[in-house]
């Protein structure tokens, strides 16, 4: 029963997120509202960590699998993707590598940590 209640608490924050998404005219998805609200509730001790922990850990563990149906949806869009193939490939590979690399380097150098040279 403990896990059912934990799951119910998480679902309650999903519902709160959906409510905010409906009420506010911003392009912010329900999931981000829900995440911020759960974080605030934990911070303000409205919800204790033990009241959501195991269910949340389970959901994090299966996270990659939840994207399988969405990724398979790419099969319906070959036509559009093929029409602008080269820009698509540029956007996918070099741009993604640059964004992750530059972001990480910026954070790391601003944090002023010593780098380990041999990675």
């Amino acid at each position, binding site marked *: 029963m403990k896990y059912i209640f934990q799951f119910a608490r998480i679902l309650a924050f999903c519902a709160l997120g959906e409510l905010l998404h409906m009420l506010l005219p911003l392009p912010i998805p329900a999931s981000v509202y829900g995440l911020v609200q759960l974080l605030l509730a934990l911070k303000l001790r409205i919800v204790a960590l033990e009241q959501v922990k195991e269910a949340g850990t389970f959901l994090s563990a299966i996270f990659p699998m939840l994207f399988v*149906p969405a990724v398979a949806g790419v099969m319906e869009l070959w036509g559009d993707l093929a029409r602008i193939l080269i820009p698509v490939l540029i956007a996918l590979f070099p741009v993604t590598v640059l964004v992750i690399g530059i972001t990480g380097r910026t954070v790391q150098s601003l944090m002023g940590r010593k780098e380990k040279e041999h990675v």
Partner: protein
Amino acid sequence: MSEFLSQSAVWGTLLTLAAYALGMWVNRKTGKALCNPLLIASVFLIAFLSLCRIPYPEYKASASPISYLLLPATVSLAIPLYEKWELLEKNALAILAGIFTGTVTSIGCIVLTALVFRLDHAYAVSLLPKSVTTAIGMDIAKELGGIATLTSAMIVLTGIVGNLLAESICKWFRITDPTARGIGIGTGSHAIGTAKALQMGETEGAMSSLAIAVAGLITAVLAPIAASWI
């Protein structure tokens, strides 16, 4: 076969679980980053659906219990974030500056690509939000006159690229700090990249989920400005 499929409520979920189990098995056997479970499972599913001539919408409807868990799973990312709160507070400025720089890089590169290849406006704005989470990205594309389904495909593929290359990119750019790694992965490849970050470590996962939310918000503000140039 198709009669059974249209009667059965569980086949899509079962097929997804089986495909993912296959992906994990191949990943364990080969131990290669390219044999990523999510990628293998998706390729297998696409091949299976195409060979059996099952229309994607039918599969999608039957696999809806899986997609249903996406919302609670994303909301649960608040838990690792809460556990890493001190780290977050201590490095707030570096983290924000990093996410901002990354988002500007992403939008800037897409604007350049669009100008060089003279992409139609609709295509160009569909590529703009490719690094942010699907829900935010699709709203941005719709708002700017893009093709939302194309954006969602680009977002998903970007996530796959990030998920596959995350560890290598950190090596190439010599990013060793877990916080910096997580922020980079989340800014560049949203939730699908975060799935990888979670496997790299708790701090990586927490920071990556934070970056999804912040990068999404910054993109929502900057994309309309960039869209007026292309």
